[in-house]
């Protein structure tokens, strides 16, 4: 039984790490502009699909180059999305902007469908597929890549927001856009940085998990939804809360699939999410928001 639990935990952490990266992307844009970017899942998909497209075939690029380019492409998509879809609507309400991001996600999915087709693709694992045994439980080298990659990026994002002037400037924009502007912060540039960073995190999540989960033009939908749930669970405005929410959601799913019923694991995850929202509307680690009048 202990071995089983260990396996469930390992599975939960791998799945949870993916959710955490997506959730982190949600939290960063939310932090900078109060907008929930529903195209976050599409960043994951574009990262993974570009990596597959660039590395595939006999003339494909070497894996590290392909991965780097894939991430760069996604960052460009994120920046372009901000520049040409979000920025022109800067006078609009938050709800309008959120609806724009939903439209953008449908658009990006459509473009991916046209460019790459409807097929499912696999990316080769970074360092082999030989399972690593821990007692009776096993995990793949790629699982370690996912966990390690997530860990590094979470720390990086944390450092960016707490120790760099640019990171603090992005945060300032979310606190009070006008005041930030008056203090000489280039608000438009900060928004571009926030979207670029979110796209970067999404693309990293995409290329890290693609060898395990495969990818297709619509792979971003479910990941986006799960990442959004994780961000809500942890507290939308708190990047570290979003990460905790992601890991928690992964563990809940895996443990309920293993110990209760695999048919109800998503339902259990969402029931817990609802309970949390019921008792702590701002999420587990979120600050209660105060409406300024």
């Amino acid at each position: 039984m202990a071995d089983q639990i260990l396996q469930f935990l390992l599975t939960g952490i791998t799945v949870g790490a993916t959710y955490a990266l997506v959730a982190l992307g949600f939290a960063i844009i939310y932090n900078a502009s109060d907008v929930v970017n529903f195209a976050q899942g599409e960043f994951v998909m574009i990262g993974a699909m570009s990596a597959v497209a660039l590395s595939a075939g006999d003339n494909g690029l070497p894996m590290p180059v392909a991965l780097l380019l894939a991430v760069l492409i996604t960052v460009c998509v994120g920046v372009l999305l901000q520049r040409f879809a979000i920025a022109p609507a800067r006078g609009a309400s938050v709800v309008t902007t959120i609806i724009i991001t939903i439209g953008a996600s449908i658009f990006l999915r459509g473009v991916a469908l046209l460019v790459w087709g409807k097929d499912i693709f696999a990316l080769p694992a970074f360092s082999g597929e030989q399972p690593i045994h821990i007692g009776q439980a096993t995990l793949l080298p790629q699982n370690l890549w996912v966990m390690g990659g997530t860990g590094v990026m979470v720390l990086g994002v944390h450092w960016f927001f707490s120790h760099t002037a640019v990171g603090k400037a992005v945060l300032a924009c979310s606190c009070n856009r006008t005041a930030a502007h008056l203090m000489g912060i280039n608000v438009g540039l900060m928004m571009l940085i926030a979207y670029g960073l979110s796209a970067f995190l999404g693309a990293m999540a995409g290329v890290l998990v693609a060898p395990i989960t495969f990818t297709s033009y619509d792979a971003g939908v479910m990941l986006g939804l799960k990442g959004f749930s994780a961000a809500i669970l942890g507290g939308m405005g708190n990047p570290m809360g979003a990460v905790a929410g992601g890991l928690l959601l992964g563990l809940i799913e895996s443990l309920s699939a293993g110990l209760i019923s695999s048919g109800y694991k998503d339902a259990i995850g969402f029931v817990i999410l609802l309970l949390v929202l019921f008792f702590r509307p701002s999420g587990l680690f979120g600050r209660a928001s105060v409406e300024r009048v």
Partner: protein
Amino acid sequence: MNIRKTLSALAVSALMGLSATQAIAADSIKIGSFLAVTGPASFLGDPELKTLQMYIEKINAKGGVNGKQLELVHYDTSGKAKEAVGFAKRLIKKDRVDLIVGGSTSGSTLAVIPLVEKDRIPFISLAGSVKIIDPVKKWVFKVPHTDRMAAAKIFEDMKKRGIKRIALISGSGGFGKSGRAQVLALAPKQGIEVVADESYGAKDTDMTAQLTKIRNTDAQAILCFGFGTGPAIVTKNVRQLGIKLPLYQSHGVASKKFIELAGESAEGVRLPASALLVADKLPASDPQKPLLMAYKDRFETKYGPVSTFGGHAYDGLMIAVQAIERAGSTDKAKVRDQIEQTKGFIGTGGIFNMSPKDHLGLDLSAFKMLEIKNGDWTIVK
């Protein structure tokens, strides 16, 4: 005023007359079709439409059927059952087609059945569900094999290997659910016990939790029913966990894509599939082989890799054409009777022998049991 009225009346009657004469001059056999050419089920409808167009063109080039040209009237349902009903109505009432070959998904086919039964028009469905022909409906036929047959074929192979207890893991989508129901219904009759019944979501990325549970049962084999990424992830996870049990997949993943996705983990996986998939590996004595090779070549030179779904469209169209030839007319009742009397028709899906009690007419020999070896299919004897 009066003159204008007369003139317009004249114009209208002239137009009507024109279209009437045109219809007589063309005097074609109208084959109606509604397929999911776009949307989520487009992997079904797209090769189906291409096949219909390709073979109708070929038949027409050879002089048509009973001296008449075939005319295809097609609508794209984009996979929506509600649209299918509207299009079927239009095919029957407005286009006045002689019969319908279509319905890519079970949902759209089942939605249209009441309509074709009421309007008495022969309908050959290209969808999978066993409910389409069980119970038998007078005007409805189908050509693809059913998931019940897939389950039966798998059990047949398991019994040969002495497997009595299995663990089932199925997708939560329509295909997986329906397959699960058939497996659970059929297993007791075949003397097989299902000791674990797990499921996964269509977009789930890791099934090790479910498989860890399965590992701790006394199952002798694992059966996975689903399509898309799920079965490939299950296959990888089984190997990752070091589970040595034989793994069976359904016909839902019978494509090269599955081997590509699951990679080395796919070695030794068994699954039932249509003979079209292994056409070039069939023995020369196989009665289906010449047809399968011809269809495969024709489709692949024009469009790329062949799929079993396009094959269903071939079977449906040819059964319809032969029935019209035998009936000597497009009289709907006569054509219906002739479809029902299809005997020994060699199609891509198998050899069809229909009867008043069986509007599909395939037996288990329509499925081949395949095993993946060295990244390719081999036929299990």
